[in-house]
């Protein structure tokens, strides 16, 4: 499938900011089943966009802009050719030993409730791939999608205890459970082409990957209870949301900040719906 992504992040400041600094993980890389046809990042102000690769293999852009700024708009857009790999990630260089992905982070720590759930699911299958699918199904069944109850700082423990959250929270719970069971797992941020025809979205998408012997890294999207298809575009991976966040930044001075995000993922040859 050839997908066209448009992702705009717009900050506005009631009181203009003196300057701002941003770190972006907004650039997908190619691997089997994901070919980057073209991709560009635009900032609506003059700045030098420095590009590096972080230790997890993500492309990172950093920039600083001087104000006064009453707004700051970051746009990422491009076209990606995808193929359905049934969720299996291939053709990517792994830079860390798998055990790194057993690390506990504040957002992916587990508590008794998560561990009990994971242990319970683990009794149902001895096969790791099978177990991970069961785990994904369990989380998809127990948690309800709700954009109002959590934010980007919500931990797996908090989200699981209220049983609500967004794709990020679902992914964190899956990661926390998998790591508790000794299965290396990580967080993936990216985009999703929605089969239901809704192309305008308020955020990117997020899911998890877990390591399966013989297969390598396999994606699991507990928010949709399925493994990534050719509708998924993988952008950045990390130990949790913080390591793969599309944008981490701050501003100096100013105030009254508001943020609006527009994401659209469409088939490249189709007009925007």
């Amino acid at each position, binding site marked *: 499938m050839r997908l066209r992504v448009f992702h705009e992040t717009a900050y506005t400041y009631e009181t203009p900011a003196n*300057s701002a*600094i941003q*770190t972006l993980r907004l650039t997908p890389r190619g691997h089997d089943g994901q070919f980057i046809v073209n991709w560009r990042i635009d900032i609506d102000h003059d700045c*030098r966009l*420095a590009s*590096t690769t*972080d*230790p*997890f293999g993500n492309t*990172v852009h*950093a*920039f*600083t802009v001087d104000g006064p700024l009453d707004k700051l708009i970051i746009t990422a857009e491009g076209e990606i050719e995808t193929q359905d790999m049934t969720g299996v990630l291939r053709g990517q260089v792994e*830079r*860390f*030993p798998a*055990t*790194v992905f*057993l*690390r*506990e982070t504040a957002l992916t720590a587990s508590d008794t409730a998560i561990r009990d759930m994971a242990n319970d699911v683990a009794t149902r299958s001895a096969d790791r791939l099978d177990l991970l699918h069961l785990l994904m199904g369990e989380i998809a069944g127990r948690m309800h999608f709700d954009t109002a109850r959590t934010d980007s*700082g919500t931990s797996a423990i908090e989200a699981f205890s209220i049983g609500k959250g967004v794709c990020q929270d679902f992914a964190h719970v899956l990661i926390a459970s998998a790591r508790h069971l000794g299965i290396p797992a990580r967080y993936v941020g990216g985009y999703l082409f929605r089969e239901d025809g809704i192309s305008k979205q308020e955020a990117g998408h997020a899911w998890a990957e877990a390591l399966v012997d013989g297969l390598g890294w396999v994606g699991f999207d507990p928010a949709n209870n399925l493994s990534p298809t050719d509708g998924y575009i993988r952008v950045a991976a990390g*130990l949790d949301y*913080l390591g793969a966040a599309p944008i*981490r*930044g*701050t501003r*100096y001075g100013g105030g009254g900040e508001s943020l609006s995000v527009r994401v659209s993922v469409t088939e490249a040859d189709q007009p925007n719906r």
Partner: protein
Amino acid sequence: MPGAFDEMTLPDGSSRPGYEFLDSWLKATPPDLLALRRAEAELLFRRIGITFAVYGNTDAEERIIPFDIIPRILTKPEWTRLSRGLEQRVRALNAFLTDIYSEGEILKAGIVPPDLIYRNPYYRPEMAGLKLPYNSYIQIAGIDVVRVDADDFYVLEDNARTSSGVSYMLENREVMMRIFPDLFAEHRVAPVENYPEELLATLKSVAPPTAPEDPTVALLTPGPYNSAYYEHSFLADKLGIELVEGRDLLIRDNAVWMRTTEGPKRIDVLYRRLDDDFLDPLTFRPDSALGVPGLMNAYRAGNITLANAVGTGVADDKAVYSYMPDIVRFYFGEEPVLKNVPTWRCREADSLAYVLEHLHELVVKEVAGSGGYGMLIGPAADKKTRAAFAEKIKADPDNFIAQPTLALSTSPTFVDSGIAPRHVDLRPFVLSGADKIRIVPGGLTRVALKEGSLVVNSSQGGGTKDTWVLDQ
């Protein structure tokens, strides 16, 4: 602890080498005079304003760390061996960090278990693959050493993060020179006053290769609420560098700039006394208001040297400590000069069982603990305390190690009952530059003021002494 090795007096009553004059001088000096000198010393410390804050103690937010006026003496041969061992130790720590953040050869060779590193909270994946100038990670180390006899030094802890206490070493010497000029006249005491110059030279030597010939160095502090703030401002003053907080710095195009009244000034080396977690809210804890947003970008771009490097804490983890003799052998193919205290790692089932059986004779520590917090001294604890601690260990064995209770050496100390032996340790400060390793002779001697106590930490009622290395 009866029968502990005393550094001044041999069992037959004679004095050990280096202590001959001091011993007879102490015997000839009336206690009243010593009390007077102590009062003078205290007055001097108060005037200097050297205080420290004790965490969890709201009554006495700032107090003077108790100072003992009787110096602790090391002879030149003793110091020569000790400093050779310290140098080897710090070189090994740097080699280890260089390795685990790149190829991980020591892990592949099965010397240190990969899990212990890669799952360690102080291992920073953000540092992986980053080539630091001169492979220099630990520019400032405070290695805690103790002795149990005349021959050997044992390393108790490697402090590879932001080790503190050097201001006490310098202040103690200054005060001692004022109250006992006569004693200094009788000994050739190696100077420590050049520590600030040595530190500055070390910091400048590790500046990024692209930095100007005379790099700009600043000291980053968490601010006045930090227990070591006095030391931060003291050192910045002595080094003649700016003392900055996170909000005084900003990142522009991956370089670090300091706000000054004359406009922004580029910084090349940051002597940071702020923990990794708080350094950069765009990389680590997003809620940190103490750090500098984007600092890690500048660091990864090679535009700033952080001293110490990010992620050094994994090397002073107490479980990693237990592998230090093997680490020295692995990188240098030589035997460690300094001994390691035998250590049981509770993460290993056999060791855990042994530790739980022998709690009454062991010291148990948290692997990432410091400052004497969160430890159990088995022989000094009652049954109930030990039982409660056993539960803590069982709940999270990976988090604990245990060591035998060492009969730490004693040093004569002026206490209420007169001059009496008290247990001591020593924290020499090891400076590793691109050019060489510098160690000022001496360090901070900490003394457990309570009779029989083995805990020297200032937060637990310990005091300090001036440490004399005799030049002949």
